[in-house]
């Protein structure tokens, strides 16, 4: 058989939207895995993560990034780790081998879809989507919220760009909700 090929969440090509004040772009370039500290192993996990990525595990609602790795908090003693998919498609195995018995690692790469959003209408658009106060949220926050009934993470970056992560199966409805909000502003 021919080798299997990767596909984005919504059909053959990544979904994008652009108007005068906003751009929404599906970003399929991330490998993603969750890590959860085993009982009583948080200290060991911190050390192992630091060794691999140079990063400390972030507090609730926070994100840290360096080199290929980005880590954000997702729940009590649980984090998501992302890295470029072209070099880290095996992210789960890499983490598993480094973290050993300090963490439970689960592959999540295909489970989430990320949209990167930027533009002048960003704040006004998100006012119509979720209850996060983007105007006062500094960069490197990863906030769990709900957008049109869809559980999502809203991540703030330097320079005012925002990323939204939702379960992949919801990508179509999320993209629709975002474009409707963008046009509504």
């Amino acid at each position, binding site marked *: 058989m021919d080798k*299997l090929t*990767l596909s984005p969440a919504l059909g053959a090509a990544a979904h994008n939207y652009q108007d005068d004040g906003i751009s929404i772009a599906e970003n399929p370039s991330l490998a993603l895995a969750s890590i959860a500290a085993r009982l009583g192993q948080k200290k060991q996990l911190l050390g192992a993560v630091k060794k691999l990525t140079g990063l400390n595990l972030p507090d609730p609602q926070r994100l840290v990034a360096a080199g290929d790795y980005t880590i954000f908090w997702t729940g*009590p003693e649980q984090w998501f780790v992302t890295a470029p998919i072209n070099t880290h498609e095996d992210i789960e195995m890499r983490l598993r081998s480094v973290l050993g018995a300090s963490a*439970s690692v689960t592959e999540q790469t295909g489970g989430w879809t990320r949209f990167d959003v930027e533009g002048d209408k960003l704040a006004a658009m998100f006012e*119509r989507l979720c209850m996060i106060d983007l105007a006062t949220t500094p960069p490197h926050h990863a906030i769990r919220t709900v957008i049109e009934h869809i559980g999502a993470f809203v991540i703030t970056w330097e320079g005012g760009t925002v990323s939204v992560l939702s379960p992949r*199966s919801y*990508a179509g409805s999320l993209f629709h909700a975002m474009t409707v909000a963008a046009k*509504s502003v």
Partner: protein
Amino acid sequence: MTQTHRLRGGQIDRSQRLPFSFDGSSYVGHPGDTLASALLANGVRLMGRSFKYHRPRGVLTAGSEEPIALVELRTGGRQEPNTRATTAELFEGLVANSQSRWPSLKFDLMAINDYMSPFLSAGFYYKTFMWPAVFWEKLYEPIIRRAAGLGSLSMEEDADAYDKGFLHCDVLVVGAGPSGLAAALTAGRAGKRVILADEDYLMGGRLNAETFDIGSGSGSDWAASVVAELASMDNVRLMTRTTIIGSFDHGVMAALERVSDHLAAPLKDKPRQTLWRIYPDHTILSAGAIERPIAFPNNDRPGIMMAGAMRAYANRWAVTAGKSVAIFTNNDDGLRTVRDLQAKGVEIAAVIDTRDGGEVIGGTRHIQGGQVIDTKGRLGLHSIAVRTKDGDVKTIPCDALGVSGGWNPNVHLTCHQRGRPAWNETLATFVPDGLPTGMTVCGAARGDFSTHGALKGGMLAAKAIGAKAIELPHAEDAPVNITPFWYVQGKPRAWVDFQNDVTVKDIKLAHQENFRPVEHLKRYTTLGMATDQGKTSNMGGLAVMAEMTGKTIPETGTTIFRPPYTPVAIGALAGRSRGKEFRPYRLTPSHQWAEEQGAVFVEVGTWLRAQWYPIAGETHWRESVDREVLATRGSVGVCDVTTLGKIDVQGTDAAAFLNRIYANGFAKLPVGKVRYGLMLREDGIVMDDGTTARMSEHHYVMTTTTANAVSVFRHMEFARQCLWPDMDVQLISTTDAWAQYAVAGPNTRRLLEKIVDQDISNEAFPFMACSEITVCGGTRARLFRISFSGELAYEIAVPTRYGDAMIRAIMKAGEEFDVTPYGTEALGVMRIEKGHAAGNELNGTTTALELGLGKMVSKAKDSIGSKLSERDGLSHEDGFKLMGFKPVDPGEAFNAGSHFLKPGAPETIAHDEGYMTSVAYSPNLGHTVGLGFLKDGGNRIGEQLRAFSPVTDKDIMVEVVSPHMIDPEGERLRG
């Protein structure tokens, strides 16, 4: 018709003419007009009919408190009933129609109610239409509703979209009158993040309706300059056309922004309205005050309105309510209207002041100590009768009458958390008391009725939350001079509540019949109900009741208010959640491929799953489903089963954890094996089922049913975090991370051997095996040897990003076997044929014993629900058992939901033997098959029963069979 009642000045743009129509007649107004001001300018006083008596009515106020000038605005899908003419902004081509009248506004046959008023007093229908009881719903109520009613719906779908949104600020200022502007300016200059919201399209509040100065200029000019300064501040958000409709827990406020209501239609892609949820640290309520009427005989004729509204129409909209105007007042504020109208050149017919003494206004017939005791004019006022303090009665011709009974602070938002206003004797009104979290009140809303008091109060409210004081301009500071006066004694009816047609007489009746507490008074008379929520009437009704009971007003009580402050369209509450967008959809990894095949989709929770895949020539869904079932059992079929919940369970205690979650044993499941698991609720009832695979020593992958994926995950998280926090176990959903396909049928292995890189022979990979594998030359995947259909089957999972490629690869590899995709219908047929339980059987009332799985509940260990499943009522061996059913006559079909009865037994609950849960046509067996619960079913195989549906009266004879109607020994799936 020309604008006969237009005055000079005002804040309207005369350079533009806006044609509009009311009840089919054409008129012209200007930008800046409301529908009410434009109608008044055109000399139209008659705007509607009253709710109950169908009395001709005009406009009472100039704001959102309006109780009677209600119209149906627009037509078709945009038609909205009960729109207040006082807040509807005029636009070119506006179409409005009066309501509560038939056949026309001027000639309304329902006005016969007015002549029958002695029989239509408060509570009349409750007393009158008591017999026979059945007539109430079928006859009386429909007639009464048609006769009463407030406007009608077009019954067309709303043509507009609505948004919802969330806003945050340091301080929300509610109302942009003098106090609100002072508060916003103080907070804004201090760098606070401010939202200033006003329901009007023009900020300034009463400053636009009055003539007195602030500083060296007019009040309206000062307001405009402050608004301009605020607009220049990045930290201030000005929201016009935005009503704060409610105050909620933790200081959260709701606001309705009328984004497009001032336009003929919203701009492309823009909403009509936006419902905002605002999270302020502080709220400054500067909502102003509402003028209250005085009740006097026949006080409801078109042309009679609030004196303050009359002044607003003259000053802001350059409109006079009449050519010859009288004023009836009990306070100094009413006299302001006299002066302002005089200044505009309007003839003052008389000033009737209930007080004996005080200022006499020159150039007018000023009657002190007088009362208006009656009025005349069927479709519009043409005279009033006045009784002087000497007892003389004089008739005074006039076509408009301004009434002022004093002002009530607008306390609504202070009451939404059950704050109860307190009586202020000096002001003769209720003022706010018991405020919600984070709220302060200033200006007229707290009883500071002078402009100076409002400005100072607003500034101090902002200062109290950390802003620096600002210098305020000079403004009038007149004291409140009022002698409370509520109603004029007299025989004709005197209206207290104009919207609900409640008169002084109705309140007397309530008193007489002992409905005296205010809450009873309200419900007995309907005082303060409907769209205006008693903004102009509650106080008057309370005062009349106080006088009758001989108590003071505070002793009598006060009503409080509920959200919303003004009516809200249901569409705004729904936002975007309507029609196909009522909720989001989840799409499977093969969705696009399935669309390409022309699949028909069905909603399963939020998922869209392929229900069947019709091919050319098939005209009925059964043809497609029968073909899919036969093809799968005959060769090989494939179905996307990604929607089943997948939960990753890891940790050194994962095995022990699952052993407690599942009723059957899991601790000894070997690595590389899958086991069917049954999960009970705490009460012993079956919660869910599924398979769980042991991928490694401390790593399991659990599957749940599609419908219960979230609830099972939540249940397990609760158990992990709260019941057994000392267990080392971690959970995370991986439902979306893996695309999973069930491949079933005798040729399954031959197909998969072309895809899977490893040996999957029966020896290497027996029934209930699982493994991490690779497919198509190296892509990581998982393989599970499990079967829901009863055929030789595998489920193959790949990371979701390969899901689309995987289904295409399976279809390509299966071409030589005529591989057939099958949907949820065929899936259902095959599982019913095989006797596998699904949602219909795991319906929240059934036990493991009833499902034929009683032996799975292990007695050798403890697990959630195992003990309670042993309760007497749940453990009778002769109780319900899941059985199979087939029709005695193979040509007959029965339905799910049928109940089993012994032949000849009466069709009653007492003789009920059980019920059918799942039914399908089996193309393999050639007849309908069913699963159902039957009392002592295990001992009744071969017995014939009636499957009776009391809903459809369908009555079919069925035979009890084993639930395993295909391959009962399970040879196929182990082959």
